[in-house]
């Protein structure tokens, strides 16, 4: 089993609904977020291109944040989801430094926090909150090993790219062009 997400940049309008849905679902404190939007504009008027990317933890197969964690609180759970055990985290911030995607932050309560792919929902067979709220249906989640999962179907026959491939992290967010 390998959980992953595909993000269709042709459809995303950058509304940040995924950001708020994550905040209310996961009680993310105000001023922090686990997912965010990047707007990319290319060209000069009037020959322009623009896409939005809904970004979050890449749940890397080769996760530097897990390798550098001195307490073992950063770990890879079933299905490849990268998690932080809050009780074991000392908030040293090594993982934050190591992450090429800037996906982690120190929670006001002292531990490091990040996207969990809404494991509490996924365990019950539901989608992450961001996926289910998206008004453009541009987020696709599921098991890459299952050819019938939403993410597998979304990746089929489409071109995609990943972020910072040069970092060698083997990220599991796939951006569809």
């Amino acid at each position, binding site marked *: 089993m390998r959980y992953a997400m595909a993000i269709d940049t*042709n*459809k995303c*309008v*950058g*509304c*940040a*609904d995924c*950001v*708020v*849905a994550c*905040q*209310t*679902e*996961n*009680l*993310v*404190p*105000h*001023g922090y*977020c686990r997912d965010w939007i990047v707007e990319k*504009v290319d*060209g*000069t*008027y*009037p020959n*322009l*291109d*623009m*896409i*939005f990317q809904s970004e979050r933890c890449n749940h890397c197969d080769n996760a530097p944040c897990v390798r550098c964690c001195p307490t073992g609180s950063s770990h890879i759970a079933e299905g490849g989801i990268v998690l932080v055990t809050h009780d074991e985290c000392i908030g040293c911030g090594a993982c934050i430094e190591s992450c090429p995607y800037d996906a982690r932050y120190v929670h006001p*309560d002292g531990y490091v926090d990040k996207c969990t792919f*809404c494991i*509490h*929902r996924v365990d*019950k067979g*539901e989608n992450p909150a961001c996926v*289910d*709220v*998206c*008004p*453009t*249906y*541009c987020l696709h989640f599921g098991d890459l090993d299952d050819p019938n999962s939403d993410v597998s179907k979304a990746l089929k026959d489409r071109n995609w790219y990943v972020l910072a491939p040069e970092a060698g992290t083997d990220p599991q967010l796939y951006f569809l062009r």
Partner: protein
Amino acid sequence: MKTRRQFIKISTAGVGAAALGLQALNMKGVNLLPDKFSGDPVSDEDLTPYPTYCEVCFWKCAGWTFVDKKGKIRKVVGNVKDPNSNGRLCPRGTGGIGMYYDEDRLKTPLIRETKQDGTQYFRKATWDEALDRVANKMKEVKEKYGPEAFGYFNHGNPGTHLEHLMRAYGSETNAEPAYAQCRGPRSAAYYATFGAYIGSPENTDIRDTRCLVLIGSHIGENMHNTQVQEMSMAIDQKATIITVDPRFSTPAAKSKYWLPIKPATDIALLMAWIHVLIYEDIYNKDFVRKYTFGFDQLKEHVKNMTPEWAYGITTIPPDMIRRTAREMAGHAPSVVIHPGRHVVWYGDDTQRERAMAILTALLGAWGKRGSLYLPESKHLPHFPQPKYPEPKWTWKDVNEGKYPLATMGITTEVIKASIPKYRYKHQVKAWFSAGTNLPLSMPDKRMFQEAIDSIEFFAVMDTMPMEVTGYADVILPEATYLERYDFLRSAQNRFPSIALRMPAVEPKYDSKPGWWIMKQIGERLGLHDYYNYNDYSEVIDWQLKQVGSSLDEMKKIGVKTFERETGPLYLGYNEDFTFNTNTGKVELYSTEFQSAGFDPMPVYTQHPEPPQSHYRLIYGRSPMHTFSRTQNNHYLWDLQKQNTVWVHPSVANMWSLKHGEKVWLKNQDGAITDFPVEVRVTERIRWDSVYMVHGFGHSDKKLTRAYGRGASDEKMITKYAMDPIMGGTGMRVNFVTFLKDNPRKENKEDKA
């Protein structure tokens, strides 16, 4: 003597203490939330869902409010059965709980008082005091001038409860900015052409279209939920999108063709498209022959309106005009010429909307799959009540014969009628407003101020302190939509649906549901027969039982859908159909406009150009905010705290403006923004224009997060162009320039 109504910024503190107090409050607002969230996410099974529909905008998406075991609201999620949301709320709806948790909310009734030294302040009052004050004033106005002199401004659900009270009291002197400051021209134009209005949600069949044409419409920046969802489906279906906009908008980036038009020239482009369809003989002949009136006149009218003619006006090359017209014709009738929503731009907006309606007709893109479908909504019988009294005069008489095709009150006219110097025959003496923040939704702030100084009384019902509440004599704090019953939502759509809004929790603080507030006032006025119930849930239950449901059922399902009763969604092939116009046909040539003395077919007129060193101010929406209503909502504030002024790099270069630099804007009439605004240097805007998101630059300090963030576009809209047909206020006729130094610096030093 009546004292001049000062705008009250701080409720109880003296002016000297205000600045310090505000800073402390600001820090508190950010760090020490009374409702601080902590703990782990829980499964939906451990939460209790209560049905609601959203009040953050007018789309009214139905959903569920989830409450945890401690009685705290955790989240709002869409109802999958709801055709307005399909189970997915937009960011504002998802962040709607921030309205409930906002610690800046109006917490108790407030009454304006004047100290001996003349300074004014709001005093906390009991409900009885506040309601008595409003009811007594209403009695007084009725005796002195008649109930008609009590004008009111309404929007959304709270506005509907206000309207019921005022109609029972005897006044129909009302206006809502949603008409003359928003979609009025569209109503007049489509009614004149098709004999039918474009309702809300718009009956655009975007889901199944082959070609979506957006004239300045920015779906995806407006989060008109169903349309955003359907545009995404259209992208999946590889539909062609054509976007006409001086700005590289979000949908422009998803379009096959983006036409970066020179602002204020859209009618020329539309007429040239019509020219191409007719003179290349690619219009929908079946539709035109069977259903339309005035084709020959139209053909003659557009004879010289060639793409080459339009090129000089619009800056869109002729081959691009031809190519896009042919693309539309190729997909006809599966084309949506989107009628837009906020369409009051240049004062000839009804005619621009007419051109869009005519284009729609030439493509046969009406009543066909992928065009404009035939919507249906469920009729809900009215709860029994006596007939409303007949007022001696209404908003219509305020217009004194102007704007003959207006179908709703015109905000600027009701405001003008409140100012004695304009010598209106029917004078407005007092105001009531609910659900609309007039100072930030109206052009010409000076006129608003003059009216405020003239009226005898102003009552405001709202959930938040807003610019408008600062001018009130009595403030009635309404409970948020998550804490109250409201009327049933009956939405027009592909099939009818109704939705229930019920309280998920008790109202916070000393706020009360809008229906309760208005009922209390009504009873004080002896209008018991119009309020023949103890709780609004009785009204809802009665209505539901008339349509085969009940409150109990709706509490479980939230949304109920019904089969269509008016026949199929689309017209059959060659089906006979009588349109509700003078000729019974789709009027390419408008007999209604002709007899009212207006151009029966649209004519392009040139609009003023920006003066030297000035740029046309274009404004629009951001997906994270609604009007000027949501900027203080902590969730939405987190997403977007301020607006920016978009400036093309060549202009930035000329002015040596850096990205992120703060500037003040000054318009052609010398008006200056209250606050500086950050420059966004971007290729996404034309060099002759600047762009701002509407709704920012709040000047009410009681909005601790939103205060002073960004600049108000409305403050720059001192000028407006009246639409002679229906009274719309065209607001894209203002030009701004940049001030790099604080224009009020000198004043500050004086005070120090």
